């Protein structure tokens, strides 16, 4: 009887293969690490791909300055545990340099991450960024290659993508161009949680149910923070919530949930009726093509 890999083993093996191709083909890659669950899966895959050696790339976080302190603390602890190198590319630094100009002081900074990312790519001469994007997240992502070509302005041209056949990845670029490599392209949100459970991965605690001051605004739950204060007519409630995605405070909303373990989150994910981005990413709700537009401009 022919032995066949289980779906998690297959996905893991594919992701390891992709990371090793990046390491084998690219001269100066970097792994984008935010402290979020998808990038934590990437770190575990990098360990399986390259240990007992060190990772053949540094880690990089594009920090908007609007992150939950627990997540930043977690990020730094995780990097220290792994003994790898972390580069922090700061949106606030781009603001002080004048390359990021906010429209208004309280404008969400998420989309400006693209500018800071491109600056960091140029400064460090990276030819490939490994990211944790998944094709099930969003319809523009569903069309993106595993190794996705970006021109010297970091732009994605969805109508002119390099063909990608079998597992033969072409990561070749000219100077100034770069590749975005997505090893967990074929994973769903459920696969990610099942992998976290199987590998016993530690996560920032805001992924699990906790008490938090929130306000209900336009059908979304908005956490009350110094960057997202309550308006005078709004009622602050203290409820049990958790985050499904973790990113910039101003565009990531928690969900009502009492799931305080990975197992309970898996049960909730199996029965959820709203998609991950639809529920918790305020920036994707703006228009039908919001993500496609951002990606064309150099976003992850």
């Amino acid at each position, binding site marked *: 009887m*022919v*032995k066949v890999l289980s779906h998690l083993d297959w996905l*893991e093996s594919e992701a390891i*293969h992709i990371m090793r191709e990046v390491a084998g083909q690219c001269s100066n890659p970097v792994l984008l690490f935010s402290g979020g669950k998808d990038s934590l899966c990437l770190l575990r895959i990098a360990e*399986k791909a390259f240990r007992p*050696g060190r990772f053949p790339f540094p880690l990089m976080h594009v920090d908007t300055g609007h992150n939950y302190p627990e997540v930043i603390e977690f990020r730094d602890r995780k990097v220290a545990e792994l003994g790898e190198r972390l580069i922090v590319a700061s949106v606030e630094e781009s603001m002080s340099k004048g390359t990021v100009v906010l429209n208004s002081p309280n404008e969400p900074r998420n989309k400006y991450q693209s500018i800071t990312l491109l600056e960091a790519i140029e400064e460090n001469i990276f030819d490939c960024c490994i990211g944790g994007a998944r094709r099930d997240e969003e319809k523009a992502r569903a069309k993106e290659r595993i190794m996705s070509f970006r021109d010297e302005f970091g732009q994605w041209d969805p109508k002119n993508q390099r063909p990608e056949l*079998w597992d033969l990845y072409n990561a070749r670029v000219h100077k100034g161009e770069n590749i975005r490599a997505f090893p967990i392209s074929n994973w*769903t949100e459920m696969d990610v949680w099942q992998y976290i459970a199987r590998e016993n991965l530690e996560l920032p605690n805001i992924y699990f149910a906790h008490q938090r001051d929130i306000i209900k605004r336009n059908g979304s739950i908005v956490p009350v923070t110094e960057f997202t204060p309550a308006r005078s007519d709004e009622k602050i409630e203290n409820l049990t919530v958790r985050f499904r995605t973790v990113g910039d405070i101003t565009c990531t909303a928690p969900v009502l949930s009492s799931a305080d373990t990975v197992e309970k989150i898996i049960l909730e994910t199996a029965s959820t009726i709203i998609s991950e981005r639809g529920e918790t990413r305020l920036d994707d709700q703006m228009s039908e093509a919001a993500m496609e537009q951002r990606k064309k401009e150099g976003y992850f």
Partner: protein
Amino acid sequence: MANKTNDTVLRFMTCGSVDDGKSTLIGRMLFDTKTILTDTLNQIEKTSKKRGMTAVDLSLITDGLQAEREQGITIDVAYRYFSTGTRKYIIADAPGHEQYTRNMVTAASTAECAIILIDARKGILTQTKRHTYLSTLVGIKHILVAINKMDLIDFDEEQYKHIQDDYLTFFEAIKDQKTQVDFVPMSALEGDMIVERGNRLSWYNGPTLLEYLENLDVSDKNSMQELRLPVQFVCRPQESSNKALHDFRGFMGRIESGTLKVNDKIKVLPSGHHSEIKDMRIGDDFIQEGITDQSVTITLKDEIDISRGDMIVHEGDNIASTKDLTAMVCWLSETPLTVNRTYLMMHTARSSKAKITQIKHKIDVNTLREEFADKLNVNDIAEISFKLAQPLVIDTYEKNRVTGAFILVDESSLHTVAAGMVKSIDS
């Protein structure tokens, strides 16, 4: 093992055009397996209304890029996912028109099964033949012919059988012995025989589309039993503070076919050096045996020179590296092939410069006739002989879909310009 398909991955592609109901079929599969979530459905409802439709148009689920929505067509392959508890499915949703032949070849390259849609009112069309030929060309061993829109012909069994006979007659002409062909009647629009049986096709006793997928045995996807382990990366952590690692040399790659055990005698190609497997691991976990598709790290009992691109095979294997080969090539680039140019051939983890020695003929994908050709344009498929600068360890594509496949890269633009499937090794 209770169920041979339990908890595995199955990759399939759907071929057809919007007119055949392909998008509706995918929408129906995702809807009936409860994969579509409320916010996506709300968005589709809104768009359906905006476009003046009375019912929710499930085909909108497969809408992707802005340009596709504007033009109402599919340009590129989209990947979609659903899971049944039995299997995780990856759908490659390929556009069906002739000008997108290259996208269909792309989708087919990773698929184990093709669902070919036929409009029951129209029967076999030129595109049905093209989709079938391309599926077999790219080595798909299971074709499910989905005869759709049965609701529009009153679920007529005679008509269904007629189309089935027509298809089989045409399929014989391809002379493909390896592909298993099955048929299912369905109405994607109304949901008959996709996930639910419905009650209007009672004369049909075969499986629904989903039952077919759930029970499909693809453990034979790589018929080759011989070990092929291309080395992707060599791990030498000399700088590590851990002294035990100073002499560590790990060879990292994915087992593309066969199995590998600790203590197995191996040889490395093209050098021909021999050794034995000392240990094998995935991350920190040591394993005794690695199987096909598994990404592993191995160490050897002897110190021999191995670098990225080398191929590890069992000692007794008589495969050798080659510099001459003939392959079926699909031209993917808008820039035509220039016969005198040198291209870069990427094969497993190794590359070589490649020259074209002869275009034997090209294939008319609609009639399957062989034609003379002295150049190739986008979407052309041709049989071509190559001469390589560096030897590659190659199997025929028929034997091995990984070690028999390559892509060509234009060394100036660095774009991927062609996909190749090795037909014969010529030296």
